[in-house]
């Protein structure tokens, strides 16, 4: 088989772990004359490279699932992990690089049965082939689903998922704690939602890795950092979507128990709608996604202006109602006053009438009096002695000054005063005769 420079070139940038050896292949090959009978002598490097290219070209080895038992794992300072994967008859070297180790659900332990997804490649400097691990999960009896179910039953029996434990989410939070990864879409989504929805809140981010073997204790630590904070109203625990393995730390008993111990309500928003973890069960409120968790934790600020406007309108209406009440009250009072008060006009009219009638009555009476007086006056004039005297009669007064009516009342020599119509005459009695009745008028 001929060399395949194109394949070589392709491989070149994918070998960061190998020291660069640029000069050898480039200088060697183009100068090679067409092969004769002489055996072709390869350098070790070339051979290893050839083996490697063979392995890389194999479609099965490039994407393989393999089950085995972990043996003698080592964790050098580089952060990578190396171990041997074996079964009863055979063994295979395996490398788990730092990045994949961080994302792994389990940390390889000696004797652990695992299923590994990865690819087989040659490591040229040492002339070995090994399994490069992309993901590692426990196998067999320790399979994820069985562990999930067992733990769910156990924690449910312990009462951690009871509805009675669930607390209401504060409606107007001032400080919200968030446990999530500070890098990536989730934190960005949460802050975006809150900026748009309720920027009045203060977010306290307690960063944590949220996947891999170290995630569970990290999440617990991050939660506990928040528990030590004063004045938090709500805590959001969030992570974006991923595989069952990616989300595994949210099924970890330590995480679930830490959520159940939270001093303030916890909203868990992990993965997508369909991902339900044990953390969701322990939460006071489960949100289908991280963004939804942010929404459930806050009032909708975009509607607040409307709500506030409604409150203002209600107070205006109440005040106007109050004023209208007062006006109605005053009007009713006024009507009552009018109804109950004496009718002054009518009274005045009555009074006027009365005075009128009184006046008239008085006038009549006066008139009658006047007429009576006049007639009396006439009568008096008729009866007056003056008139009688004018007719020639006279009045005689005796010595005692009394009007003399009987001749026997005086004797001869008694002084008499005779009153005439004009003037008086003083005289003396000569003699008296009879009783005078017969000739009085003569």
């Amino acid at each position, binding site marked *: 088989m001929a060399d395949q420079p194109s394949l070589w070139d392709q491989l070149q940038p994918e070998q960061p772990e190998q020291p660069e050896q640029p000069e050898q292949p480039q200088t060697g090959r183009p100068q090679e004359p067409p092969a004769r009978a002489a055996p072709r002598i390869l350098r070790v490097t070339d051979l290893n490279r050839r083996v490697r290219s063979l392995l890389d070209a194999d479609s099965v080895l490039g994407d393989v699932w393999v089950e085995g038992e972990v043996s003698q794992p080592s964790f050098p300072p580089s952060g990578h992990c190396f171990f041997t994967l074996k079964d009863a008859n055979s063994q295979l070297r395996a490398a788990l690089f730092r*990045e994949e180790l*961080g*994302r792994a659900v389990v940390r390889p332990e000696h004797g652990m049965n695992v299923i590994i997804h990865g690819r087989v490649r040659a490591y040229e400097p040492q002339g070995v082939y090994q399994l490069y691990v992309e993901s590692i999960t426990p196998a067999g009896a320790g399979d994820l689903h069985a562990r999930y179910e067992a733990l769910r039953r156990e924690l449910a029996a312990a009462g951690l998922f009871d509805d009675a434990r669930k607390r209401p989410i504060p*409606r*107007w939070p*001032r400080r919200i704690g968030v446990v999530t*990864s*500070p*890098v*990536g*879409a*989730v934190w960005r989504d949460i*802050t975006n939602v*809150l*900026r748009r929805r309720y*920027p*009045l*809140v*203060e*977010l*306290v*981010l*307690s*960063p*944590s*890795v*949220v*996947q*891999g073997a*170290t995630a569970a204790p990290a999440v617990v630590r*991050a939660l506990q*950092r*928040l528990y030590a*904070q004063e004045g938090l109203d709500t805590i959001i625990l969030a*992570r*974006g*979507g*991923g595989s069952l393995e*990616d989300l595994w730390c949210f099924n970890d008993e330590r995480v679930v128990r830490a959520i159940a111990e939270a001093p303030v309500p916890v909203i868990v928003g992990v993965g997508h709608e369909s991902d339900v973890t044990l953390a969701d069960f322990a939460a006071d409120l489960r949100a289908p996604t991280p963004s939804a968790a942010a929404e459930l934790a806050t009032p909708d*600020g975009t509607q*607040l*202006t409307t709500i*506030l406007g409604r*409150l*203002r309108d*209600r*107070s*205006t209406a*109440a*005040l106007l*109602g*109050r*004023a209208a*009440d*007062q006006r109605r009250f005053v009007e009713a009072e006024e009507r009552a006053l009018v109804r109950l008060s004496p009718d002054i006009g009518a009274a005045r009219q009555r009074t006027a009438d009365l005075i009128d009638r009184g006046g008239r009555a008085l006038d009549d009476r006066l008139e009658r009096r006047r007429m009576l007086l006049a007639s009396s006056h006439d009568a008096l004039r008729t009866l007056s002695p003056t008139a009688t005297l004018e007719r020639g009669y006279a009045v005689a007064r005796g010595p005692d000054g009394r009007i003399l009516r009987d001749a026997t009342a005086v004797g001869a020599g008694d002084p008499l005063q005779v009153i005439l119509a004009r003037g008086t005459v003083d005289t003396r009695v000569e003699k008296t005769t009879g009783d005078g009745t017969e000739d009085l008028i003569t």
Partner: protein
Amino acid sequence: MIDDAKLAVLTDDELAKHPFDELVVALQQTVQRLEAGSTGLEESIELYKQGLRLHAACETRLKKAELTITELGRRGVTGAEPDEA
């Protein structure tokens, strides 16, 4: 809590510095007292003025609000993972 006595002495600026939820609660209570109708006309007018001030303070808070972010143990974070879906 924001009560009548506090409202009487606070300037509008000072009022707008109060926590938003306290302002909203005070506004709600003011409206409820107005609606109860047990206050006289003079007092109702005072309550109404109070309500307008609280409403303005809420609006100010809403307009000026900017999300505050505090990060705990900034330096203690290691092993940040790649972007998630």
